[in-house]
């Protein structure tokens, strides 16, 4: 399973490296989302307050594009069928695709975070960096697991371009909420009194715990369910 996961992840990352989908399309899309929100809100106190939520919204929208791309390459020339015929371990395929997706999301989030700090004039307390990094890592695992699972579910369906967001967005809502709350704690902002309203960094860790449970549940579900999903695709 792990050998297959390594092969599939390396293959997906090589495809991304050659096609530059993240750098040429997804990153500009996510950056534009941040900029447009900054223009629309147009007040520093508001943008600083909502920066964590906008960060995770931009990440979630980008996730949809990345997941669609990850499965388009499998269906474009019948590679998914060939994977099935080749008897490649479905759990390994699932973990490999999730790992590749997570790596792409981490790169995207790193650049987005810089964008948030620049566009929204967000100051992260030095003590909040650890919470920010751990939140991003755990939330990314959850997004990658659930994205790969639902990407596999929609892979063989007609109209999958519209079906995938409809299926995926409600399911990732807990990640959006939990990661936003944890980032608010790390940034020292919340939805109430504005900047530096007294939210403690410690308030963010329970949300990280919730994100970890989400990632574990969907990781386990994906390992078990991806095989039958591929059969239906």
């Amino acid at each position, binding site marked *: 399973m792990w050998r*297959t996961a390594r*092969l599939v992840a390396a293959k997906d990352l090589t495809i991304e490296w050659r096609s530059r989908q993240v750098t040429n399309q997804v990153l500009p899309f996510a950056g534009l989302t941040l900029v447009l929100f900054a223009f629309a809100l147009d007040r520093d106190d508001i943008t600083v307050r909502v920066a964590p939520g906008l960060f995770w919204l931009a990440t979630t929208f980008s996730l949809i594009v990345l997941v669609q791309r990850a499965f388009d*390459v499998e269906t474009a020339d*019948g590679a998914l069928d*060939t994977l099935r015929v*080749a*008897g490649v371990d479905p759990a390994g395929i699932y973990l490999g695709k999730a790992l590749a997706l997570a790596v792409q999301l981490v790169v995207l989030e790193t650049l987005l975070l810089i964008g948030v700090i620049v566009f929204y004039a967000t100051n992260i307390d030095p003590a909040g960096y650890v919470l920010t990094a751990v939140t991003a890592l755990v939330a990314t695992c959850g997004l990658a697991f659930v994205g790969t699972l639902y990407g596999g579910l929609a892979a063989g369906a007609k109209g999958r371009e519209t079906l995938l967001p409809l299926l995926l967005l409600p399911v990732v809502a807990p990640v959006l909420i939990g990661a936003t709350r944890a980032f608010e704690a790390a940034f020292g902002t919340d939805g109430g009194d504005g900047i530096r309203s007294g939210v403690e960094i410690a308030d963010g860790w329970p949300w990280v715990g919730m994100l970890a449970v989400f990632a574990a549940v969907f990781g386990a579900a994906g390992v078990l369910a991806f095989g039958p999903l591929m059969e239906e695709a």
Partner: protein
Amino acid sequence: MPASDPANAASSTDAAAPVVELDDVVAVLGRFPALAGATLRVNPGEVLLLKGPNGAGKTTLLRLCAGLLPLERGHATVLGHNLAVDRSAIRSEVGLLGHQNGLYGDLSVRDNVRFWGRTAGASEQEIAAALAQLGLDGRLATVAAGRLSAGQRRRTALACLIARRARLWLLDEPHAGLDAEGRDLLDDVIRQSVAAGATVMVASHELERAQALATRMVTVSGGLVVASEAVS
């Protein structure tokens, strides 16, 4: 000359356990029974040509043998594994070249063959040999599969199949898209794979060329195997 038992013409390897044995097999696509009680036996080392009109069930037969379709009724074994209960074991030992090539357009020819070869545990030497056998070594190996011609993509897919070291080759219109040189190359590859111990089932409309390769041909019509004859 059609044999009296259409599915099981006499063969020099009849004594050996069959590679494929289908008995009154029904397979359904949607609500349509694409195979309606097919019976067939394929012996080791055979090159079996499946012929018949469009929609006769040739592709379904190959996909069933690849373990891609569930068995609705009947009994089937492929490479000694029961198709109804052990499709994953079958899949690791068969190679299917269907209407699509199963290639990743952004990966180079070499990377495609390497990926598919490694999923089956092939070594770098075996991957290099597969590329060389199809004339895909050299500069062509570094070209992205998406930039290749249809014939070159077909050759790349064949190289992937060789690298996977399948025991049973299931080829659906393998000559499609190939130029004359590519077709000769494909025929050589099939002969070499059989010499190396593989068994091949080919669905083709190019009967003259396919008959030159085949040791036996069966006619598929209406989801049934209706005739079988040895090819001299």
